[in-house]
């Protein structure tokens, strides 16, 4: 009787809750994502998932192409009018998803609302050099910088919202955009559904919509792909699963070079790590090809520096540190760190997060460093605690990744002495006046060829000084149903090409089921 009542109660709950599974047309592309976007307003979106979806909803002045180069998006063309003024000429006829024309006024409004301190936009911190935005007519936008500022092109990557979109912390709704899709539904932690922007042209046969489903567990994501309830995912599956998925006839695995950069960071506040010989010894003690082979199942390239070869400013002509534990031991001896009775010279604290792959990396590094007499005390924390420690410089060693590096200006953010926290990302307290000078020069030099030479020197100096040991550049790995066609990978993991993806006929077996 009571069990029956309880059963009834559950049935009522199950039957009466609001329709949380929206009706998704069968011809929509179903994409699994590992977390819900935090905000679909591009002025407030800081997480990777939001950024990926925003690319499909909004346009920006510029966009990165498949080779990682800046190309016009809203802008038909752009040029430097002076070292402090970048002019963009907008494409005519761009319309928002409600049919209104998008003009320079909307672009100016978007930038102004980010620059307004009252809006508390997280994008404002990256726009300190932007003095203002002008819209002299409906099709011209001028970004004015406070000083000659070559990375200004990066400022053109902000997605544009219409001029009547409210800003502020409470403005959490999703604005209209002029991108290939419009938002058709959003249930936090469950679905984001995009339908075509009727005013944005697209190729015949391309999918009419994309349904993003939040699937936090990677194993379940793989099962969805196998079952066919998901047709696409990118960079969400652990490398260990990829070998199995590659062998499935109804799935395709696309692996392409990526720009996400994994590094080992030293804290220069520690006197042992301030010694270049110790840093070099640690670099030589790490077998990076083995890490890529064993931990990442070959889904990465061993890195020589922060900029991947796809970046226009990349140089490979930097000092390398091939795996050589014997040389590492000699280097540590020379630095005066002799092994004690327990075989250890000294012990460092390595901080990391609690993810399985993070822990495996920590253990592999500990085993490698043990070979040269350095003990590694691994401390793992949940992300906010770990992040707080790293920001406060409360670590000896840690490993993190930079995602989405576009301009070599990133070196300024992480290696300039002015960027030591709380303001900036130089968490390891690295200071070299020569580096500071080069970075200032790199920011102020507009000519790309001169800039390339400056950043070649920056990369060489970073490889000499070793504030980071470069570990790897992570490949972008997309797993998709074999009937998904037209996907083009971008080095930064952008999903922009989903706008032109098409779905072939469903395999007979799946159709029957």
């Amino acid at each position, binding site marked *: 009787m009571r069990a029956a009542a309880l059963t009834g109660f559950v049935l009522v709950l199950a039957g009466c809750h609001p329709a949380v599974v929206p009706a998704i047309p069968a011809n929509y592309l179903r994409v699994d994502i590992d977390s819900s976007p935090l905000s679909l307003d591009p002025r407030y979106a800081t997480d990777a998932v939001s950024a990926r979806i925003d690319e499909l909803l909004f346009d920006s002045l510029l966009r990165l192409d498949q080779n990682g180069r800046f190309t016009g998006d809203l802008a038909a063309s752009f040029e430097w009018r002076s070292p402090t003024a970048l002019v963009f000429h907008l494409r005519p006829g761009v319309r928002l998803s409600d049919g209104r024309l998008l003009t320079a006024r909307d672009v100016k409004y978007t930038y102004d609302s980010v620059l307004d301190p009252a809006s*508390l936009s997280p994008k404002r911190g990256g726009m300190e050099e932007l003095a203002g935005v002008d819209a002299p007519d409906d099709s011209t936008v001028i970004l004015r910088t406070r000083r000659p500022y070559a990375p200004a092109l990066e400022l053109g990557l902000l997605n544009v919202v219409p001029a009547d979109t409210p800003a502020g912390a409470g403005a959490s709704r999703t604005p209209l955009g002029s991108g290939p899709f419009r938002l058709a539904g959003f249930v936090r932690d469950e679905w984001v559904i995009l339908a075509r922007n009727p005013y944005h042209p697209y190729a015949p046969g391309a999918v009419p919509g994309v349904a993003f489903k939040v699937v936090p567990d990677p194993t379940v994501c793989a*099962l969805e792909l196998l079952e066919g309830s998901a047709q696409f995912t990118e960079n969400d599956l652990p490398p260990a699963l990829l070998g199995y998925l590659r062998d499935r006839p109804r799935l395709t695995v696309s692996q392409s070079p990526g720009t996400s950069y994994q590094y080992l960071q030293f804290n220069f506040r520690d006197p042992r790590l301030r010694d270049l010989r110790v840093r070099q010894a640690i670099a030589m003690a790490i077998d990076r090809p083995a890490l890529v082979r064993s931990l990442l199942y070959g889904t990465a390239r061993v890195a020589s520096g922060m900029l991947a070869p796809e970046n226009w400013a990349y140089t490979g002509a930097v000092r390398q540190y091939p795996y050589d534990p014997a040389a590492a031991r000699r280097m540590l001896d020379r630095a005066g760190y002799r092994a004690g009775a327990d075989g250890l010279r000294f012990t460092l604290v390595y901080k990391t997060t609690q993810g399985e792959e993070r822990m495996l990396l920590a253990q592999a590094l500990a085993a490698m460093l043990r070979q040269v007499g350095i003990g590694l005390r691994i401390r793992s924390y949940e992300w906010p605690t770990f992040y707080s420690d790293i920001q406060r410089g409360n670590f000896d060693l840690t490993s993190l990744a930079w995602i989405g590096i576009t301009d070599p200006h990133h070196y300024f953010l992480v290696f300039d002495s002015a960027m030591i926290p709380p303001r900036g990302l130089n968490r390891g307290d690295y200071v070299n006046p020569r580096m500071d000078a080069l970075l200032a020069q790199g920011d102020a030099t507009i000519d790309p060829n001169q800039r390339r030479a400056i950043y070649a020197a920056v990369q060489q100096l970073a490889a000499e000084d070793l504030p980071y040991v470069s570990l790897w550049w992570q490949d972008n790995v997309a797993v998709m149903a074999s009937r998904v066609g037209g996907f083009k990978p971008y080095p930064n993991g952008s999903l922009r090409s989903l706008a032109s993806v098409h779905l072939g006929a469903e395999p007979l077996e799946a159709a029957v089921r």
Partner: protein
Amino acid sequence: MIDFIWRRILALVPVALGVATLTFALLHLVPGDPVIAMLGENATAADVEGLRHQLGLDQPLAVQYVAYLDGLLHGDLGQSISTHQPVSRAIAQRFPATMELAGAGLVVAILFAFPLGLLAGARPGGAIDFSAMSFALFGISVPHLYLGPLLMIVFSLELGWLPLNGRGGLAHLVLPALTMGMALAAVTARMLRQSLIQVREADFMRTARGKGLSELSALTRHGLRNALTPIISLLGLQAGALLTGSIITEVIFSWPGMGRLLISAIGARDYPLAQGCVLVFALTYVTVNIVTDLAYGLADPRVRRQ
């Protein structure tokens, strides 16, 4: 009985205060800054201070605590820092999903435990007992993290009978409920078996058999009721644990419940949302225990008379 209910309801007040205080203290003491989580490390000092002021995080902790309690007294759980949504609304959206899952888990536990426990307790040491207890051992031993995907592979991928994950109608509920309920079913079945074995030797059971009832009839009609008190106690405690322990199942099955909400709130150091979730979990747990106490009275007239 009415007095008893009132006393238990009044006891909720200090529990709520204690939970609110502990959650507030713990969340604010652990490292992590919601403002940096929102604005990023590139944020200017002025922006950081501006947002800190807007969120009231620049106030002394004692002031923030009093403001939080004041809000609670007025039924206001505050506003989520990360989504700007009222906490009560966010919880109201997710609470039914978690209740549904926990309730379904409990139903599964009861549906499996009672037949298994009865069959095993009716003939201890026999083949049925061995099979039932082996099944129970499996239920206890297999963690949710493994059982969930295993059920998905069998019932969704291979047989195609049930949806893989997500929240929808009844069909969506079956696999997560099985995942949630199997361990509890196993524990309950084992305890019921043990309880029945003890009851079997009681005088009233001998009388029942003497009246000509079969062993199974005697057990179900007379033994089960007497063996039920520890089972109700166990189910009551575990029902609360099902509610709060649904987090892993919610993650595996992409179930939009409060467990996932709490995890993401803690990750973002969204103090009001995390505090609200923990408070609701705690109050639900206590309420379930009150209901359990009341259920004793229904099962055992001696308790009612007391």
